[in-house]
């Protein structure tokens, strides 16, 4: 891959996505060895720069970098001088002065990862920027579907919930549509405004109908902190219409899988029986996440070898 940064799925070609997924497949095996380490990034310094709380993504990147033998520094805004009023730019320039090779950033501002590339010399990986994109999540979602279904082409992928505020949804939309899947969005209309139909998707506000014949259902976390934004009247009504229940799951293909980027609100977007059922591949997503991130880090930094 001829790329220095990974900022979005939208900017990737189908070929690049295939290359990352192919590389990821090779890395799955490493994590299953008794000694889970390869010297691919020995001597490289990777910074995990997180301005939002995260357990999964941050630890996944950390483990991925460590299994590639990179030195990893974790930086989160709660313990940094950001609280003292230091700007994002100054913070990053100070970290870079310690000669970093790659910065993984999660930030509440859309475009924050791209902003870094305007002034810093390290590679930048977007680990979630505002409501823009979360490219490695989409890659691990793609990997999970590929492992379970053997292909992405021709799959019907239904993404359910708060599309408007979801960076995972945006990255998934671009990834699956580029790979030839059919993407259907479902959720309350205020969370999927009409102009979303201009993206390479179909929109169906009726979840029961949207699920017909689905191969994959991706449930998004209902961001409870937005519940009072007036996007829908009550959680009760949301649950009635958009929770994935065992009955609703019956509308999909019998072998359809259920995914979720986590963390789950049990009993809200996902019924506990579904979350814990054999159809759920949520933990497998987490497992694939490490391999996908190892692939991304090695492809971006490997070019310098």
């Amino acid at each position: 891959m001829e790329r220095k940064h990974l900022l979005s799925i939208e900017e990737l070609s189908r070929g690049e996505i295939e290359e990352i997924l192919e590389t990821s497949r090779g890395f799955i095996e490493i994590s299953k060895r008794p000694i889970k380490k390869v010297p691919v990034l020995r001597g490289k310094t990777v910074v995990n720069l997180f301005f939002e709380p995260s357990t999964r993504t941050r630890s996944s990147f950390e483990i991925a970098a460590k299994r590639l033998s990179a030195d990893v520094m974790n930086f989160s805004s709660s313990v940094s001088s950001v609280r003292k009023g230091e700007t994002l730019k100054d913070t990053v320039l100070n970290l870079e002065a310690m000669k970093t090779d790659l910065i993984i950033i999660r930030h509440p501002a859309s475009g924050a990862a791209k902003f870094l590339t305007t002034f810093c010399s390290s590679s930048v990986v977007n680990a979630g920027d505002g409501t823009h994109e979360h490219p490695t999540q989409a890659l691990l979602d793609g990997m999970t579907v590929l492992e379970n279904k053997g292909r992405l082409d021709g799959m019907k992928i239904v993404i359910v919930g708060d599309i408007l505020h979801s960076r995972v949804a945006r990255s998934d939309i671009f990834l699956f549509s580029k790979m030839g899947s059919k993407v259907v969005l479902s959720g309350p209309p205020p969370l999927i405004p009409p102009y979303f139909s201009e993206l390479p998707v179909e929109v169906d506000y009726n979840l029961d109908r949207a699920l017909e014949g689905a191969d994959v259902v991706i449930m998004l976390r209902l961001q409870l902190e937005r519940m009072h934004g007036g996007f829908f009247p009550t959680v009760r009504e949301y649950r009635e219409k958009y929770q994935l229940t065992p009955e609703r799951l019956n509308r999909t293909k019998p072998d359809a899988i259920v995914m979720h980027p986590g963390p789950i609100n049990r009993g809200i977007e996902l019924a506990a029986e579904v979350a814990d059922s054999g159809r759920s591949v949520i933990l497998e997503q987490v497992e694939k996440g490490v391999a996908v991130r190892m692939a991304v880090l090695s492809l971006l930094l490997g070019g310098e070898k």
Partner: protein
Amino acid sequence: MKILLKNGKVVSPLNKINGTFDVLIEDGEVKEIAKKIECEDCKTYDLTRMVVVPGLIDMHVHFREPGREDAEDIKSGAEAAARGGFVAVAMMPNTDPPVDDPLRVRYVVEKGKSSKVFVFPIGAFTKRREGKELTEMVLMAEEGAVGFSDDGSPVSDPLILRRGFEYLLSLDLPYLDHAEDVRLSQDGLANESAFTAKLGLRGIPWISEAAAIARDLLIAEFTGGRIHIQHVSTRRALEIIEEARTKGVRVTCEVTPHHLILDETVLDSYNTNFKMNPPLRSPADRDALVRGIKSGLIDAIASDHAPHTEDDKNVEFNAAPFGVIGLETTVPLIWDRFVSKKEISVRKFVELLSVNPAKILNLKGFGKIDKGLSANITVINPNKEIIIKGEKFASKSKNTPFEGWKLKGAPVLTIVEGEVVFEAL
């Protein structure tokens, strides 16, 4: 000091001048306009192939004095105006503290007097620009305010707006309306569309402008008040203005160069110099605005010059303030994009940037080159090629969305009350 402008193409629509003339300036006034004037003790400029127009007026600028003089003060802003070909500007009251009483109007007037161009204060419409109590508009007008606006924090309460319109009837000065329903654009960063949704930028929908304009025009219609819509940015807003105008509502409106030339598709760079309010809209909106300047529906072009320091702007998109500067780029942009390409005539250019702003703000003696009038004149070289470079601006701020643009057509001489305040012949 006598000045002779020779061989320029003089365009002054109000008194129907459109042709090659010599213009003699003496004691700050235009003494004579004729085919051939000889003057031995004059400072003489040969303006062959240049265009001589009534001094341009930017009716919407923000100078940050008092409050943020590090971004712009009245002196530096006026210097930028002079270099941009403007002889006068109308300065919005959203300073810190705001220009919301007669004394503060006097402060701006006094500061303006020692600056290079005329600085006409716009007074706040309500105290502290809070939308609650009207300001002393009559006394402020006596001190020199030429219009009233809470620009940036639009008046929400319709009763305050009604009373204000009615009160202004005694002055015949306009209410300058930053029309926005801030509840509809709450926390928005960019035009609301599929394009900006992909970028994850929270939307400012076109209804936040159009709905506010519709309501405000109804109140203007009811009261008979004069309303000027600032920086109109959407197709629907224009349609509503057009309808009101046919009903006889006393409405005028302006557009900025950036809304005429750019659209939201530049935002994938997340460059904060494309962040302004109203936001850059869709290509279809931009096309409607261009049609609006051609048809006469839009009365004026104004820069909405909004200086911000490099430190304030060079941050992630969310954190950056809204606004871009425009005093030193407006004339080259409009000339290159519209006059050179025959999209609008020179006459239309003069109407948009001088005649109509003077009319809207009741600026006596402006908008015309005529014998006996104060000599406020701009000269444009249609063939001068420039490259826009923020670092070369007289403005203290560099936040232009047009950095690096190559343009043809630029101001080369700015004359204020018979004095050359900028020369780049």
